[in-house]
């Protein structure tokens, strides 16, 4: 479910079926998260960062399979 959401962030159209867009979405979300570092509680920031890193790992693995 998390991956689908991230895919949408990186997607360019409504089909949301572009390989590689998810990875871009994670990069964008990580940058956005860093912008929010000063206002987010430390534990929330850490938890979301862990999730994004996990998603990045899964997407990289997936990319390796589809390429």
């Amino acid at each position: 479910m998390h991956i689908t959401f991230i895919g949408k962030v990186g997607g360019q159209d409504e089909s949301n079926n572009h390989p590689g867009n998810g990875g871009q979405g994670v990069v964008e979300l990580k940058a956005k998260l860093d912008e929010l570092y000063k206002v987010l509680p430390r534990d929330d920031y850490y938890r979301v960062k862990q999730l994004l890193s996990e998603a990045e790992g899964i997407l990289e693995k997936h990319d390796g399979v589809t390429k």
Partner: protein
Amino acid sequence: MTNLQLASRLIKKASDIQPCPVCKADLKILSEFVEKKIQGKHQSLKRLKKIDYVNEITSLAISSMSIVAPLVRMTGIKAPELYEKILSDNFEANRQVKAFLVRARREFSTDLIAQDRDYATVAWIIDSFIKATSFKLGLDPQLFYAYDKIIRFGYKTHLLEIMARIITGMKG
């Protein structure tokens, strides 16, 4: 590779692994400044001056913690488990950041600093970051938790931002 190119790369490496996004952005500015200066590109010193607040903020953090620490110990406040994990996760990264910065700082010789005011400022900022990283490395979970609460208060109230502006403003 020249000494300064090596220094710039080492600062960039420190920036890449820096766990704190605010410090990461500042170190990136520092690395880019050195890189452009090596290439002879004209650049405003304002960008560099904007990040020349680390020493004062670190000194303030160290002195505040010397007052807060005994109180924290006395009350026996316990850091949540997650804070212990954050601290241990960040420890190795911070240790490497410090090592990269110490190596980068060695590339700024006394002669170079005496000849060029920009490089003197860069070296001073690197020294400040080394001091800040050493401070972070010395915190245990209990003090890290207390320190984080103070920092978050500073961010929330914009106090840290205002202080940084005053510090950099006073330096002209």
